[in-house]
């Protein structure tokens, strides 16, 4: 055994770089954008079908319809009941799911590669020929409404939802949760779901992503068969400008009696996914609250013990989503924690990160990128992002280079322009009788307490 010095970290070995897999891109006869990558590590395949028909395109009366419709897809097709659909999929070991969200609807499939020829037709059938039988729709709707009730009483979800309406102006879709409201969901029927799917589950402007132990030409042929006769483009198109709810800092406490902790959100309108600042801002955010050794986490957790953890993030969407710091802190330290959060945002926005911090953050981001391409599902998720946001085909081939090129000045400049502590909205879900008065004393701005009626609407 050779002598070595234990007191210093060992040197790195030789780097083995690796690239995002090559994606075969072709257009099916119905216009569907097909992207296939052969990743043959293990005999599995991951599929995403993205359709651009999202919550962003719905007005408040119909909010949640995209999400509900996607959830109800497991209720069966014109050819088979919900149970028959589930049995057909599970008999061949296929996992199927569908989710609606801001940008659109995504149906997904994961199975052994040699089952794809049987599984893909089932995904196609579920999406292009949904049955929406009355009783299954009623069930999906009841589940959805019960879920809304759970969100209200879960302190983290309650804080998230309350914060959105403080960041975005009334009437902007992003001001609400993408789950809709009791009113909007309560009024929906099977006809609404049929109407929505019929008008919006369309191939144009979407994409089909297939990653795994497959052959691109064979997949193309299979997809052509599965989706023949399915045509058109989504009818609902998002059309709004993001407007912030306020330009001044304000504080809202949502009363949750008996809380032993405060859920804290501090944020404002951020920026969109296609911003030229994406890489610089991602680095700045990692320094602020995007990794374990971020300023926020080292301060609030490792120095002060206020919390189990704190994170900051930009919700990058096709339009500017929220920028938000999120944490849960002890009652007695709630004002101190809010003060420290604002100090840290102020610090990075006005003085920027240090050279060393930027180096760590971009090394982290560039390195972690490789770790996150291990599974076919992870690769499929990345490839979906290309479709959803119209990113260039070589985007992920360039990703690490562009991340590594971010300079300290770039990160400081991005932080200065996109993090605005004086416009930050502070939202605390906790026991207002305990944490309200000391929070108000901080004098951060207009102060409001919302005393929620359980299961009902907040009264302010």
């Amino acid at each position, binding site marked *: 055994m050779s002598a070595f010095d234990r007191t210093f970290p060992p040197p790195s070995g030789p780097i083995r770089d690796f690239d995002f897999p090559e994606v075969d891109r072709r257009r099916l006869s119905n216009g569907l954008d097909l992207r296939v990558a052969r990743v043959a590590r293990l*005999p599995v395949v991951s599929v995403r079908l993205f359709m651009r028909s999202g919550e962003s395109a719905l007005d408040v009366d119909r909010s949640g319809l995209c999400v509900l419709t996607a959830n109800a897809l497991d209720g069966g097709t014109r050819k088979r009941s919900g149970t028959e659909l589930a049995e057909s999929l599970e008999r061949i070991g296929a996992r199927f799911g569908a989710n609606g969200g801001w940008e659109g609807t995504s149906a997904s499939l994961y199975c052994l590669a040699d089952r794809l020829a049987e599984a893909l037709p089932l995904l196609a059938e579920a999406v292009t020929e949904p049955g929406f039988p009355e009783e299954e729709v009623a069930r999906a709707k009841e589940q959805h409404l019960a879920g809304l009730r759970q969100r209200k009483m879960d302190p983290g979800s309650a804080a998230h939802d309350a914060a959105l309406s403080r960041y975005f102006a009334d009437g902007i879709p992003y001001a609400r949760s993408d789950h809709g409201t009791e009113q909007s969901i309560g009024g929906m029927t099977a006809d609404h779901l049929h109407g929505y799917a019929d008008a919006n589950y369309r191939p144009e402007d979407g994409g089909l992503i297939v990653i795994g132990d497959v052959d691109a030409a064979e997949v193309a042929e299979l997809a052509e068969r599965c989706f023949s006769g399915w045509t058109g483009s989504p009818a609902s198109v998002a059309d709004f400008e993001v407007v912030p709810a306020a330009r001044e800092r304000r504080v809202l406490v949502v009363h949750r009696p008996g809380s032993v902790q405060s859920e804290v959100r501090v944020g404002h309108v951020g920026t969109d996914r296609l911003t030229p600042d994406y890489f610089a801002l991602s680095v700045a955010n990692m320094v602020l609250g995007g990794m374990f050794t971020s300023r926020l986490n080292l301060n609030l957790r490792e120095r002060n013990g206020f919390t189990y953890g704190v994170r900051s993030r930009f919700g990058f969407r096709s339009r500017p989503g929220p920028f938000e710091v999120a944490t849960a802190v002890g009652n007695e330290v709630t004002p101190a924690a809010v003060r420290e959060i604002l100090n840290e945002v102020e610090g990075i926005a006005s003085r920027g990160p240090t050279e060393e911090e930027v180096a760590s953050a971009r090394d982290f981001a560039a390195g972690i990128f490789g*770790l996150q391409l291990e599974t076919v599902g992870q690769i499929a998720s990345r490839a979906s992002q290309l479709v959803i946001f119209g990113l260039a085909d070589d985007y992920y081939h360039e990703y690490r280079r562009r991340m590594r090129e971010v300079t300290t000045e770039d990160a400081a400049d991005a932080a200065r322009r996109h993090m605005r502590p004086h416009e930050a909205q502070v939202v605390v879900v906790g026991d207002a009788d305990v944490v309200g008065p000391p929070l108000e004393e901080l004098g951060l701005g207009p102060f409001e307490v919302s005393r929620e009626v359980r*299961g009902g609407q907040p009264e302010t």
Partner: protein
Amino acid sequence: MSLRIPIERHRLDNGLKVVLSPDRTVPVVAVNLWYGVGSRNEAPGKTGFAHLFEHMMFQGSAHVPKNRHFELIEKAGGTLNATTWFDRTNYFDTVPSHELDLALWLEADRMGWMLPAMSQEKLDNQRDVVKNEKRQRYDNQPYGDWAERLQKLMYPQDHPYHHTVIGSMEDIDAATLEDVEQFFKTYYIPNNAVLTVAGDFDSKDALEAVDRYFGEIASGAPIPSIPGRLDLEPKLGKTARDHVISEVPLPRLIMAFRTPPFSADDFSVSEVCQALLGMGRAARLHRRLVRERRIAKGVVSFQFPLLTGASMLLTWATGYPDTDLEALESALAEEIEGLRGAEQAEVDRAIALAETDFVHALENVASRADQLSMFELFFDDPGRVNTMLDRLRAVTVDQIRAFAGEHFGPDNRAVLAYEPAAEGDQ
């Protein structure tokens, strides 16, 4: 479908068990350590300590100042974490493969030289962090005390699974630096640990590196026996009940059963039963309670695979605002007892899904390493990773029917009911 992942076993002179599983397909490597200590080893008055100690393991060691472990791994483009459970504590780093030595060096430093870095300030800081973890994950959550209540129903007062991993605030408050030292010397010894390296490396180089970093750590005495009375009746002997009225959004009925220990031959039968109940949307609970009867908003089934005395199979059904808890209980019981009439077709579906999930779990080296460590520590046989599916496939419908008859009756049940407090009761 049969997949075999490569496995090499070694043992250092100090007793550290080493499992290597090379796979050069992607330049990622996982370093994973399982220590044979968990909440079951905690003495009365020290509940939650194994977990608090896990936090202290991240507070630095002789050659690694506070925060440096995180800084070095994150700068390397890696991830790290740890978890504490009843029977073990695991630590894991996943890094680009050219940083394997860094992860080994860090893990070795805290296995060998943790104590010089400990201080009262660090303990007080992590005590606060852990108390906030307890508040965030349990005390401030609807249904957050379910595990605590269920364990009390399922395991007697003097059994090590009677208390939760997170422990009590009082015991967390009472922890001292002396406890940290004692715990470290007793349990964090190479002969009470398994180190697995999975992913992109050369076996010979990796083994040399492991020996370089871990080889000189002194082994310790055999670990003390687990406190409390360990033997359990295979069945609870009754239906144990707890009815809670609290600030929860929806009624929820949790029903659990004592099942054979993880090491028992018929544990695999229990696993298939659990899959028949809750794996997938064609499975019994979802099909009947959620889809057909619409009495539940959602259903869940899972196992606590445990070593000491008995495991626990859990199911729960979350109702709608107007669901009657008694009706929910009989509906749930009916489906579970219905396994006495299990059919081959549902077993085939469960096995098909299990095959897919098995390959999925092998897709990332971190989960591969975690399973290898588990099977090595618990069964001296990491090769069980490769025979896991065969054991499930070998389970017959007759075995399932008999198992259901034996284990799922009212003489072996814990029932925990959550009833939403009336409106305006706040």
